[in-house]
């Protein structure tokens, strides 16, 4: 808008145009640079695209309910309206510090740690079909693994091996099945399309040698994806609930009638899963328990 107005003023206003452009660029920089810097910090030393590019996700959540929840934090459009005096601080920034009536702290200037010095692989469930993994592997652990592999380490690559451990206490070699997820070198997180609701997963980040030997570096927690459809289990049991007492099994005079399931639940409004099988490469044969 500033730019447009300046152009209208014609050639005589080239100076104004340059000045306005500079202001615009400064404002853009003030907003964009901190974001970019943060993004780079989050990605670590080698910024690169770490998202699995297999799913097109809208830029932001939608729906009236989200809009209302968002309205709690809405104080007006972010765009600067005409009539706003120039040189004000960016939106959302506070005024100049007040004379402090109490002991107070201002914003923290340090950066968040890039590493915590612990080997860690964590799985978090995003939905019935996707799991998010993040990890940190300490240099010592990596060196120890490479030493152990010796000459075999030549050409080894890092990957995430995901195990189906439904109803299993995982010991490293007793999963129903597993599959490998190729990751970008240097990545520290990944979205994994596990593709199976109501299934338990565990994962290992490790080195796969050209000869096919997998040397785990770190093992994750176990997560279970949500069930995405009505349960096949139609058994019926009843309990008596009393305050401050454990539930007691009881028999109810149930007439055997069932209420039909409600249609149009929130979960069915999302995109349906593309695939019920793991999309990643190298699905291993199921192993017996």
């Amino acid at each position, binding site marked *: 808008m500033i730019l447009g107005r300046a152009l209208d003023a014609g050639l005589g206003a080239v100076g104004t145009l340059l000045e306005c452009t500079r202001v615009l660029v400064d404002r853009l920089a003030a907003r964009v640079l901190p974001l970019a810097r943060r993004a780079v910090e989050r990605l670590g030393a080698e910024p690169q695209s770490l*998202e699995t590019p297999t799913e097109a996700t809208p830029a932001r959540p939608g729906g009236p309910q989200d809009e209302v929840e968002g309205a*709690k934090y809405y104080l007006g459009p972010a765009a600067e309206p005409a009539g706003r005096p120039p040189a004000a601080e960016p939106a959302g920034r506070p005024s100049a510090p*007040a004379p402090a009536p109490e002991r107070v702290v201002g914003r923290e200037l340090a950066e968040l740690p890039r590493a915590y010095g612990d080997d860690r692989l964590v799985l978090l469930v995003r939905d019935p079909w996707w799991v998010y993994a993040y990890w940190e592997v300490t240099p010592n652990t990596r060196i120890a693994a490479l030493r152990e592999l010796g000459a075999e380490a030549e050409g080894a690559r890092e990957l995430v091996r995901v195990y189906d451990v439904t109803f299993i206490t995982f010991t490293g070699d007793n999963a129903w099945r597993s599959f490998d997820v190729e990751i970008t070198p240097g990545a520290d997180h990944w979205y994994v399309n596990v593709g199976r609701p109501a299934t338990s997963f565990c994962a290992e980040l490790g080195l796969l040698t050209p000869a096919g030997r997998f040397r785990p570096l770190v093992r994750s927690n176990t997560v279970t994806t949500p069930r995405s459809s009505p349960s096949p289990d139609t058994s019926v049991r009843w309990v008596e609930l009393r305050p401050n007492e454990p539930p007691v099994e009881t028999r109810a005079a149930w007439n055997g*009638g069932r209420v039909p399931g409600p249609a149009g639940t929130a979960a069915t409004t999302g995109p349906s899963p593309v695939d019920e099988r793991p999309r990643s490469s190298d699905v291993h044969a199921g192993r017996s328990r």
Partner: protein
Amino acid sequence: MAHGSLAFVLHAHLPYVRHPEHEDFLEERWLFEAITETYIPLLEALDALDRDRVPARLTLSLSPPLLGMLADPLLRRRYLRHLDHLVELAEKEERRTRPLPEFHGLAEMYLARFYRARAVFLDEWQQDLTGAFRTFQERGLIDVITCAATHGFLPLLSVSPAAVRAQIEVAASEYRRFFGRPLHGFWLPECAYQPGLDAELARVGIRYFFVDTHGIANATPRPVYGVYAPIACDSGVAAFGRDPDSSKQVWSAEEGYPGDSWYRDFYRDIGFDLDYGYVRPYLPPTGQRIHTGVKYHRITGKTDHKEPYDPARARQQAEAHAAHFVDARRRQVEWLARSMDRPPIIVCPYDAELFGHWWFEGPLWLELVLRRLATTPEVASVTPRDDLERHSTVQRATPAASTWGWKGYNEVWLSGQNDWIYRHLHAAADRLQTLCRRYPSADERTRRALTQALRELFLAQASDWAFMMSRETTTEYAVRRTHDHVLRCLELCTALERVDIDDHRLAALEDSDNLFPTLDYRLLV
């Protein structure tokens, strides 16, 4: 005898926003607007129902950060200052609009509302709104419950089980501090459930919680009554499911009541419409135009042209919508009762801030619905606690992991915009827990430092920050809050590990991030 019952559940929450380091801080207005537009109008509606002895029952979830802010002396002072400015603006507006008949009545309406808000806040409740809600609970109108300590998104924190346990324990102790009785029901933040969370709720004596529709529909085994009766988890805690029909009537973009063309428009505000110099004194010190709360137009339609608001006509719509809602529930209950051998319960959970802040006529609609229900013999208004007392035999089943967010699972709080926060939240929780375990007892200074570190961890865990990042509004503030509280927690951990606590710094942190005054780090031991 009623064929069935209806349970309204309103969840009121805002993240802890208190910035003593600035005289006037923009985001504190989230609280001030919610007080003026939602909490006071709800109290007024409760008061009217109470005066008229309407046998209404309602469940209200008040989050611990909200309770803490409503009780905070600094925020109370600042709210009054904010309200004084609003009154001054409305007085000016009353004078300015005298030659403008279509707006003058509206200006008078706002002036009367703000005067009334001040009277309710100052004279009727002596600034103690949590006390007001406690009073209505004691009078039997509402069941007050609460949610996790700082609205932590529990499934994504559960890598550190102690963090989840702490969120729940502090919620229970804050509830007892404010309401003088044990906590019986729980609002899972964002309705985010995963199997096993119920056992943590059972540990502190909680009897029920809420899940979205598909949490019940996909429960194991399959519930025979669908969402129209609670189910009992193995822990003995009951789960109530959200009714999809009544939620659609309010939330649907097309059919939802709040979008009616006669209702007041949320986005048109004199903070943007009027001459800059005129509204400048009521804008933040930065001078940016923002909403003032004075809005003169109605939704009108899908157009930028907005007609002036007509309160009498809007009231008629609210009455018609209340009648429609109650009639729909009556028919729903009668239909359900035919295939059920217990009276169905229709559970209607909403964000409290929908009523009044977003949907101006919402508190009126709610009051009208409750009044109508009182004269509708087929449907009784109840709370889940009432329902469990009357129907203590419950089907045993475990809800499916679910949330009430977009797409029904965790994606709003776990996406490319906000997933980076979890490694920090988990690492800080684990590091602090390791430290706390070293101190089964501690000297005063160590105790204070550990407790303050836990406060900072709690503040970082609020699900609001991830939500704001995913909506890409107020992202900068959300990032800053996550960043600051994680860093303060880690800073205190380092100081404790080195046995090098800076007294001045600790005191400043305690004064700035001052929620949960009775917190004790030993709940992490």
